[in-house]
Structure formats: structure tokens, C-alpha cells
């Protein structure tokens, strides 16, 4: 089971080119949440964006502990999914990637248990 504060992005990001792999912070120029850290958060965005290198960057962030603890998308994104699966395979770090249409826009603390998303507190 994963618990974390939801980081709800106003715009999707590409893990590669959009997140600094050395700090885990959003570095895309002009992104509304520029500078925010993904570490320990449940990352919420409608879908992925951009580069197919995002799988590698996600796996690397999970290896170094700078990554999110879970990812919630509106539509499945295999680029993020495989990044999380490989981190689990290599380092036994879990970062479930789930598809949900629940309203998470208000943020708060959420848990992901066996692929199910639930609000823990506002």
C-alpha cells in the first residue's frame, strides 16, 4: 500500500526533460509547478507527455528515492508504467501507476492499495 500527498499538476510533464533527475523537481520552463518536488508525492496528471525516455528517468528517480510514491492518470500511459515496473524489478521499489477518474483536484492525502485509489484525508 502507498500513501502520499497528491501533487495535482495543472499541466502534464514529461519525466525526461521536465523533471531534474538529480533533484526530483519539475524543471520544465514555464510549467505552472516549476520547482515542485515529486519526492514522496502521489503524482496526478491527466496523461504523460513527451519523451519516451521518461521510463528511464522515472526508474532512476525511484532508484535514488527522489521519485513519487504513486502516479494517477486519467488514461493509461505505458511509458510511465514500464518505468515503475522496472524499478520494482531491479530495486524492489514500488510506485503503482493507476488510472482513475476520481476527483483529486483538491489535493489531500490519498492511498493506493492493490490498484485502488482512496482518499485518506483532505
Amino acid at each position, binding site marked *: 500500500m502507498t500513501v502520499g500527498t497528491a501533487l495535482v499538476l495543472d499541466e502534464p510533464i514529461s519525466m525526461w526533460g521536465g523533471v531534474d533527475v538529480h533533484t526530483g523537481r519539475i524543471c520544465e520552463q514555464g510549467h505552472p509547478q516549476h520547482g515542485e518536488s515529486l519526492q514522496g508525492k502521489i503524482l496526478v496528471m491527466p*496523461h504523460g507527455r513527451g519523451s519516451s525516455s521518461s521510463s*528511464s528517468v522515472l526508474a532512476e528517480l525511484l532508484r535514488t528515492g527522489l521519485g513519487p510514491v504513486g502516479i494517477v492518470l486519467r488514461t493509461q500511459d505505458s511509458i510511465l*508504467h*514500464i518505468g515503475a515496473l522496472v524499478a520494482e524489478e531491479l530495486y524492489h521499489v514500488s510506485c503503482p501507476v493507476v488510472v482513475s477518474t476520481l476527483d483529486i483536484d483538491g489535493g489531500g492525502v490519498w492511498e493506493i492499495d492493490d490498484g485502488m485509489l482512496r482518499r485518506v484525508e483532505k
Partner: protein
Amino acid sequence: MDLDSDDRAMLAGDHGEAAAMAMRLLVAVGRGQAAPHLIDIESAHIDGCLYHGRAGLDFARRLVRGGGGVRVPTTLNVSSLDLLHPDLYKGDAVTAGLAMELMDSYVQMGCRPTWTCAPYHLEPRPAFGSQIAWGESNAIVFANSVLGARTNRYGDFMDICCAITGRAPLTGLHTYEGRWGSLVMHVDLAGGLLDDDLTYALIGHVVGRLAGSEIPVLIGLDRRADEERLKALGAAAASSGSIGMVHVVGVTPEALTLEAATGDAPHGVGPVIDERGLETAFRELSRGTGRLGAVSVGTPHMSYESLLRLAAMVEGRRTRLPFYVNTARNTLERAPAQVQLLEAFGATLVTDTCTYITPIMGDIDGDLMTDSAKMAYYAPANLGVTVRLGSLDDCVVSAVQGRVVSSRWDL
């Protein structure tokens, strides 16, 4: 998900540990996408050979140790190093060593050392309707949209898992219905704009922003949207959005008509793409300070045809500023005379990698000018530079004069 006997044998480890891990990951992703079964693929293009940290290398090492080898013809994307011009690399030696090991690992698994992000410029090209597994966002859009080959958006790891198993989950863009356009957008631009190369890069940027993960269908373009322009459009759309395919009605092979492009599924209608939208896109991507420091063209890797065009443009001229041309080693080999012209101009030719992903350009004193919306999208965060966008002609004239010269886009 149904697995055939060969899939199950791989999963059980009959073909070695690497094939077992690759199949295990493929099945997990396929289940996540609710794929009914796996299909055979004819070729693969690997994005995972570019070094981003230990995770990518740990994975490749695990595959090599487990006896991993590709089952289908497989090309390799750009890496972090230019093996033909090793002195260009200004990064640290430790990273270079790890990047080299990553590259070697993929070659060891039987991939062709093509080192290009534009594998569609190589022979043989995937045939119309063929099932492939390609990584590299711009290559994915080109393969689907322009060639009519079928690939989902594959990320690092997934690309080599498909190559090793020769299989991919049957979902999304691999299926007939999964290729139907879901968001129709009208392009309403004056004729002159459609003769300008940069217009197509800007359209792509807008399309990626607006379409998100939909399959956009563009109406209002014509045959002037040739391969080079579609390449620029797709690369931009795949940077600003999560785009795997773009239909251009009357131009791309699965969009002879609007009805063919959208199929039987309901589709939305997006905002009109007009000149004002392109101006906004230009301002988003082109935030230069006004003082020009360097020029970089060829993102994605410049084609043979464009290299010829560029060489003709620079003949007898001399750049005042550092001028980089990114292209495939395969293209370089085909154009020795043009390479001489470009070197006489003062250009630095970069192969195997690209100036926006690895330290080659060093500190730039002023803006970086480029004709690529993809470069403009990523370079500010990757390299910490300010970018000025211009057409290829503008890039050449500006380099010669040592200041930004713009024929059209000067907002």
C-alpha cells in the same frame, strides 16, 4: 491476456533469463492496457541506449547477463556520445564511461549501431501496415502518421522487451480502430504561411498542447506538408503533448478523407489553429534575449535531402558563430562533398547524439537559434539556454551576420 505456447515458454525461462524478464514486463504492461494477447512485430527501434543514470544501465546489464538478444531487426536511437567525433563531448569521464557501457550493451544484444533519432531515414523503412515497436517520440509519430506502420508509444525498457521477445501487446495504435482520429482540428492559415517550414513546427507545438493524448486529425493542410514538414510537425507535437499519431486529411496515408481518418467512432472538434495561435506558440518557444550566441539545426537528425539543401545554402559563406548540425552517421557517409562545404562554412557536424541531450556546445554567450520546435522545447531546461526559433534559412543568414535575422517570425 492470452499467451501462446512460445510466450509461455519465454515466461517460464526456456529462452533464458533475459527473455523471461522481458516477457514478464511485457505481460504486466499488456494487462495494464487490457490487451487481449501479444502480436509479432517486424522491427524495433530502441530509445533506451541514451544514458540517464544507473537504472538504465542496471537494466541493460541484467539483460546482457541473462543472455538477451533481439529477435527482430532493431535500430538504436541517439546516445550520449558522438563516437565519430569523440572530442566533441565536454562532459565528465565517468558519465562517458557509463554511457559507453550502455551503448555497448545494446550492440551486444544484436542491435544495429545506427545511433539516430530519425530511423525512418534508414533503409529498409517499415512498410505500410506493418507492426513494429519503436521508441523515440518523434520516430513513433512519423512511423504511424507518415509511413502507416503501427507502433504504440514505447518508452525505454519496453522497446528492448519487445525486441527480445519479438512481441508487443495488441492495443491502441497496433489495432485498426485504435488509429482512428479522435480530435478534429481545422488549420486556417493564409497560403504564404503554408510555404514556410517553421509554420509546421509551430502547428505541431499547438497540436500537442491542445490534443494531449488524443489522436489529432488536421484539416486545412495540403501536399505542401511534405515529409520534412510532417517530421517537424510530429516532433513538436510529441514534445508538447502525448501524441503517437497525427492524421493530416488529404496528406497522410490513413487520412485520404476525414471519414477515413476518424472511422466509425465519435470524435471531438478542437479549436481552430490560426495565425494568432502560431504567434503564441512562437512566443512560448522563442524566448531569446536578442543577442545571438550559437546555432544548432538537425533535431531530429537532419535528412540527406536537408543536408544537401543546407550545404547549398552555406556554400561560399562563413559562420561567425558556433554552428552545429546534428545528423545520422549514415547520412554523413552519404554526403562527403556536402560535409566539406559545411566544414568550410565553419559548422560542427554532430552524429550519434544530439546537441540538446549531451554536453557538446559548452557555454553559449547569448541565445541559441534553432529551426526545431523540439530543440526549443527541451533546450532551456536541459541546457539552461535561451532559445530563438527561426527557419533553416534564417538560421544560416543569422549565423553569417552574427545577429538574429528573421524573414517572417519577428514578434
